[in-house]
């Protein structure tokens, strides 16, 4: 049979298959099938809906929001400053009664003012051994810890994303060299290296930073960021590379390409949406681990520079007066555990909501 006659045969078959019943107007009952049960959603909206149903994750989320807002706004209107030693007023002798106040206690000068009928703002958590209001130090310490956690995670994200995507796209020798480097950094004992780097950077950076705007942040926080940039990007790079390698081979990418989709369309509509959730979740889970590391270093005296407080350094300072003022340790301990716990639970909730593949 020749090619032409085959086509003719097909056309004949087609004409015979037309069923006239198909052209009768639909009945009311048939129209029912076409009614949308639920408006169509995007993957993002669907994830949000699943997240909202997860009570543990939502409670954690509200706790994080409240703590973050408090850490940002409370220092703005609070009458005391975190570095203000209340007993040391310019032009007056040092008033030691401000030091080591118990919660809601007043110094002799403040008590005198109160006796005259003036109102004095209470020291909710008392004051520390240098006469600084402890409540504002805890709030400010929370601010520092959160900021360090956030920016460290951003650094990890940017470096990991860059190296991972280069490695994934380039492939071949470049990929192999990068992945061997990643393997080695990955198997380095991170905490030991962090302590080593922090102790050395602390000494070298301080003199170099003097006079630059960075000096305000403090050499120790900068060295903490450098450490994260050097050591912690590896798992993010591995993750991004793995994502790119596996997504490139997916059938729907092939299908899109076969349908004539351009490269930019494939990246925007197929690769990014599938990649983003995994990367965002792993960044979210990086924040508590960064806060953990910062508090650990602060505890060893390698964290933030005095008089700036962080939750770890507050806990560390509290060890000196432990028998008389145990609440000075308990308060930052509770705050730090609460932050890490809520961030972890919220991160888990995010993963459950946005990455159904992981749930099996």
């Amino acid at each position: 049979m020749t090619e032409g006659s085959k086509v003719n045969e097909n056309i004949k078959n087609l004409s015979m298959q037309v069923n006239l019943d198909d052209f009768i107007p639909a009945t009311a009952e048939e129209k029912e099938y076409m009614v949308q049960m639920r408006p169509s959603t995007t993957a993002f909206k669907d994830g949000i809906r699943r997240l909202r149903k997860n009570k543990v994750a939502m409670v954690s989320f509200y706790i994080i929001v409240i703590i973050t807002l408090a850490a940002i706004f409370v220092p703005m209107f609070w009458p005391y400053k975190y570095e203000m030693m209340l007993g040391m007023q310019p032009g007056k002798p040092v008033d030691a009664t401000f030091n080591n106040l118990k919660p809601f206690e007043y110094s002799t000068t403040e008590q005198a003012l109160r006796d005259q009928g003036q109102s004095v703002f209470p020291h909710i958590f008392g004051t520390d051994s240098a006469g600084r209001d402890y409540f504002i130090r805890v709030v400010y310490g929370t601010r520092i810890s959160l900021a360090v956690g956030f920016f460290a995670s951003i650094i990890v994200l940017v470096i990991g994303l860059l190296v991972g995507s280069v490695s994934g796209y380039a492939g071949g020798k470049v990929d192999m060299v990068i992945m061997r480097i990643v393997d080695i950094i990955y198997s380095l004992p991170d905490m030991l290296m962090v302590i080593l780097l922090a102790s050395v950077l602390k000494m070298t950076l301080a003199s170099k930073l003097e006079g630059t705007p960075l000096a305000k942040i403090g050499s120790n926080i900068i060295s903490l960021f450098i450490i994260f940039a050097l050591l912690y990007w590896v798992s993010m790079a591995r993750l991004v590379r793995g994502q790119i390698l596996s997504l490139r081979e997916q059938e729907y990418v092939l299908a899109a390409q076969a349908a004539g989709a351009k490269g930019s369309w494939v990246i925007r509509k197929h690769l990014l949406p599938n990649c983003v959730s995994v990367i965002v979740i792993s960044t979210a889970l990086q924040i508590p681990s960064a806060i953990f590391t910062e508090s650990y270093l602060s505890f060893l005296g390698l964290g933030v520079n005095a008089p700036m407080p962080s939750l770890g350094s507050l806990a560390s300072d509290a060890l000196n007066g432990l028998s008389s003022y145990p609440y000075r340790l308990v308060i930052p301990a509770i705050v730090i555990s609460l932050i890490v716990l809520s961030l972890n639970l919220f991160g888990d909730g995010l993963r459950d909501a946005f990455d159904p593949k992981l749930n099996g």
Partner: protein
Amino acid sequence: MNPKTLKYILKRIVLAIFTIWVVITLTFFIMHAVPGGPFVGEKAVTPQVQKAMEAKYGLDKPLFQQYLTYLTDVCRLRFGPSLKQRGRMVIDIIGDGLKTSAKLGVIAAAIATVLGVILGSFAALRRNTVLDRVIMVITTAFVSMPSFIMGSLLLVAFAVRSHIFPANGSTPAGLVLPVITLMLYPMSYITRLTRSSMLDVLGQDYIRTAKAKGVSRTNIIFKHALKNALIPVITYLGPELAYITTGSLVVEQIFAVPGIGRAFVNSITNRDYTLIMGTTIVLATFIVIMNLVSDIMYKVVDPRINLE
């Protein structure tokens, strides 16, 4: 052993040796990046004395030659004398500290693993009961608490307030609190790990087959389920020991335990460079080897695992 497993083990050993070399090299060059060298901060010394000291420790030679000397010394476990503790060798300080730290670490790791497996299995077998919920809530809380905070809180509660245990960790009774501090995190982690892998195993077909055959419940749990559920726990043994090692740095500091961790932290505050380098290398080597062993064990124990 099949050649694929052997190839994997060889590859991992090469990577581990390479990692240890990187640690030694990094430690050496990081320490040499410190401005002024190791004798800054000593009492005022004349330039001649400074020269003599540098010559004594070989610091006047070119950097690369110093590095090579250091590398051969490290391989022979010669870390030189401590710069701050007069007349003591670094290797002796490390050796003394290791005795206490090893005792602390081994006890903590053993209790954490055993308790974790028991609690995890119980939670899985009594799934969705009150017992399961309580275990999960407690372990979630422990996983979120840094070891130094846990240690400080225990110190307040049991040593400062109620004097049940001594606050000083140099006596056997004083080791109780440090052990508890160190074991809580790995115990909670192992509990969660065992629970989820146990649940996974209990849903497998061969458990149903065993039940159908009339195997007793005890036999099913111990011979069929637990054996398989413990495989993921093996992978965690390396990280567990690494956690306990680094955790002991602060825990020994809090409870004044005379171990290697406290020596390390003190050496950082004292800027005792040879001691910092020695301790870092010893601890890092230990962690790398532990990770290597637990990874290899994991692959050897379970033939189902794909080595690629």
